[in-house]
């Protein structure tokens, strides 16, 4: 017993669970009905008798359901383990934490690499285009399945933050609060541009073969380059200066050739290569497209109107000073819209050199804030509208 808790501190070993939802299919934003949908999810802690301590954690672009704790033999815990666990910001002694892989992902929830029951082969490009709102609708079905009607909070960073915000707008009655970190209410042209670079890198690789590469090598190079692009946007100029400088790797002097010699090159290539072994290229296409379609003000007069239904939800919006992928201004715009709509938002900008990556790295600054905010949410009485 002690051996396990020494080797796997925090939550110890955790298990991903699977459930098949929407057997008759679920209507998507594109008017297509799609199903069945398998969902991979993990839960930590215990749902209390009042069923009012549930927290939904939404992962970022390359994340999955394994948010915290350890897989057998793993060298790293889940992606947000420093925030989730006994005594941590999302305290699993108090709260029931749920994390599910999104629709279109490649970590256990139905996505383009899943087997199409009609053909017995992977969907590939036959997989329907999905939106952030579709992903949230699937998560809502998962909560129905788990017997969770209302969320104490829904949270996430980056793409996860977009899902959290979408939750508030799609299901205001089910969301008591939102913690959205390093995110946006709509993808800007610059964000779309980087995603297009990601997609073109993948699709330009002959190994992509119109998305029909399962069983073969696939667009390994394209996906690796795509990931390199991503990683540049996750760092900051100053952060790169501090982390790599102009240092050379395994060399004293310039080689005057095209081998990787700067440390930053080695870093990016390593990130690219290791990503290929853990992520599906088609999923990358579908997820980046979903982000590009994301605009909470769609179907509303403006963003303020989108948040009109969320007056009873409390918002905590966290930005990072050096995040240029999802700049602080976008979170300020969200705070403004929530407030102008008559809602309650706390906006906090953390001074950090880590760029967008700060949302995973600067947890020491986020944790006390999240803890206090959750305490406030749990102790705030909700003004229930009559009827």
């Amino acid at each position, binding site marked *: 017993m002690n051996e396990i808790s020494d080797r796997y501190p925090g939550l110890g070993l955790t298990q991903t669970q699977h459930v098949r939802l929407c057997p008759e299919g679920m209507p998507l934003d594109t008017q297509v009905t799609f199903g069945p949908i398998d969902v991979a999810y993990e839960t930590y802690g215990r749902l209390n008798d009042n069923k009012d301590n549930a927290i939904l954690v939404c992962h970022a672009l390359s994340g999955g359901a394994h948010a915290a704790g350890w897989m057998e033999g793993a060298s790293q815990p889940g992606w947000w383990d420093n925030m989730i666990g006994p005594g941590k910001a999302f305290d699993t002694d108090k709260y029931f934490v749920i994390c599910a892989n999104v629709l279109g992902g490649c970590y256990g929830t139905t996505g383009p690499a899943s087997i199409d029951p009609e053909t017995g082969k992977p969907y590939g490009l036959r997989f329907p285009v999905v939106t952030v709102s579709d992903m949230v609708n699937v998560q809502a079905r998962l909560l129905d399945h788990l017997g969770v009607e209302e969320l104490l909070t829904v949270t996430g960073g980056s793409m996860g933050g977009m899902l959290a915000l979408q939750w508030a707008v799609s299901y205001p009655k089910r969301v008591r609060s939102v913690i959205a970190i390093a995110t946006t209410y709509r993808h800007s042209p610059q964000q779309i541009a980087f995603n297009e670079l990601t997609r073109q890198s993948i699709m330009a690789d002959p190994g992509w073969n119109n998305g029909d590469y399962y069983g073969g090598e696939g667009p390994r190079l394209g996906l690796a380059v795509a990931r390199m692009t991503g990683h540049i946007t996750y760092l900051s100029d100053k952060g790169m200066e501090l982390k790599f400088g102009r240092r050379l790797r395994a060399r004293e002097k310039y080689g005057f050739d095209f081998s990787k010699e700067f440390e930053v090159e080695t870093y990016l290539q390593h990130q690219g290569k290791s990503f290929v072994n853990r992520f599906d290229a088609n999923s990358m296409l579908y997820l980046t497209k979903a982000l590009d379609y994301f605009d909470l003000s769609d179907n509303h007069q403006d963003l303020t109107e989108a948040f009109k239904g969320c007056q009873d939800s*409390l918002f905590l919006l966290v930005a990072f000073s050096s995040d240029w992928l999802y700049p602080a201004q976008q979170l*300020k715009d969200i*705070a*403004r819209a929530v*407030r*102008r709509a*008559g809602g*309650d*938002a*706390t*906006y*906090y*900008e*953390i*001074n950090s050199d880590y760029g967008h990556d700060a949302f995973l790295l600067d947890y020491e*600054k986020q944790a*006390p*804030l999240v803890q*206090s*905010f959750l*305490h*406030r949410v749990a*102790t705030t009485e909700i003004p229930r509208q009559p009827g």
Partner: protein
Amino acid sequence: MTKKTLRRQEIYDWIAERTIQNGKVLDIGCGDGELLAQLVQERQVHGTGIEIDEDCVVRAVQRGLSVHHGNVEEGLDHYADKSFDLVIMSLTIQEIKDPLHVLQETARVGKKAIVVFPNFAHWRSRWQLALAGRAPVSGTLPHKWYNSPNLHFCSVLDWEEFCRENDWKCLDRGFLAAGHPIRWLPNLRAEVAMYFMEKQ
């Protein structure tokens, strides 16, 4: 030079007495949220703050408050007309870049306002400037000229004139020196002036 530090509790109590029960209150430059926390406890208000200092924001959130981390102009723009029953500026206005604009915005987002400021015409300041020939340093103005966050200096008389010229009706006023109420000759004797106002 006085060593007396400013006593905030008397200011807070004066504000709390004029704060409507269960109201919505905005504190501009809320610091670590000490005043708002008192108003939440005593008046059960829904308290919101604007604060630029990162550490102060964290402490205010830890007190269970809703806060905007940023500058005042931006923070005020986030709110719709008449969102608050009361907007408070407690020892903030002298540090704001554009007080006129902020007061106009205060009138837009708030139904009533309380402004507390250090009285620059206090006799000790006058003494230091007129006789000693030095820029005033005191409990309410504790900084040297080179490190002071204070950008604007105004006196009780200046403030009254401003209110008249800008259609702010004074609902109540109070003056303090060393934490004690001052009733006569406030422009000479008050270290701190407190105004409860409404825009007409």
